[in-house]
């Protein structure tokens, strides 16, 4: 059971990578420049990077939350056994 939960977590991580790449490819990368000129492009690139970091952080927290729940579920099972 424990191993199945861990393999499911890896699968969830894999799915999140794909979802993340869809979000980055279709929503973050095509964003137009916030300002004109080279500095505008640079600022937009940094802004896009921050959005991507935010997305990765969100996914990491989601994975962590699911993992903690799985951990406590397994610890409760151990007590019952």
């Amino acid at each position: 059971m424990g191993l199945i939960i861990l393999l499911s977590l890896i699968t969830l991580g894999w799915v999140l990578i794909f979802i993340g790449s869809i979000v980055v490819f279709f929503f973050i990368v095509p964003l137009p420049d916030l300002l004109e000129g080279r500095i505008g492009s640079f600022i937009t690139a940094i802004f896009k990077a921050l959005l991507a970091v935010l997305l990765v952080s969100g996914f990491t927290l989601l994975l962590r939350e699911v993992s903690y729940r799985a951990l406590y579920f397994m610890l409760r099972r151990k007590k019952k056994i």
Partner: protein
Amino acid sequence: MSPLEFTLPLTLSFLLCLGLTKFLIKYYNRHNRFVIDYHKPNNPKVAFPGGISLIASLCLSNFFLYLFTKDIRILAILLVTLIAGIVGIIDDFYILGGKVKPALTILASIPILLFSTYDIYLQFPLFGSTRLSIIYPLLIIISIPVTSNVVNSIDVFNGVLSSFMILASLPLLIALMLKAQFILVTSALILILSCFAFFIYHRYPSKIFPGDSGALALGASFGALAIVGDVEFVGLVALLPAIINSFFFLTSVKDFLEHRQLKKKPVRLNIDYELEALEDRDAPLSLVRMIVAEKPLKEKDIVKRILIISAYSSALAIVTAIIMYTKWV
């Protein structure tokens, strides 16, 4: 590439790593250079650090490959491995600490930037590539410290690091073959063969531990190969168990700490020499704590489970490689 140019670096990587590891075990045992393996009864002494043989075989084999091919990407991989390996050797002999070590591994990403051996068009799964001219170089600066330190974080039991790296490198090899990047395929094979030679002495029960020198060099070499080969997503999926382990640890400890600096350990050793998960809510989350959460396990069983998870992750990475690099039309 002629058969000689292909086979010489490969043969050298395997034989050099095998011979040098055997020599290091004898040398360290003669000079009392060892660490104690606390997970076994009688606490056996294990030779340490064996990473020097991995660094030597990876660098020398890649050097010959570079001489034959004159491919600058191979020189970049070689230098990345060497710099990360040197940081690891310093850490093995004079403990650098949880913050200095990742900071120093940033230096290892310089050769990739210096030789411009990267593609600013990042390839995404399913949808194609996109231009990241400003962000991608910044990502490279973070990537090598990330790959080297997450690989280091999984080096917790006998044989795990070397076998994990063999399994994680297979998807890279397949992805590079699908992209027809045969010089880099040879470099990936060098990585796999070096790990395999080291695994012969590192497998349970270990005769030698790689130390941070081995772990950082292997992780950096893997990261460099993924970047210069433009197969970053495949590498990311293959490293998932190590990445998840590191992020669990970082987000629960909320600091860059070495295991020896932890106030509360994620697992403890019971009198039967089995590892069991701590029920304390403040104990850090780690892959091993999750593995032993349901029942206490012996080291050998934990290693088996880590390898099952790694093999599964590698299978997902191979699927990713097939999705990304197979021409469907």
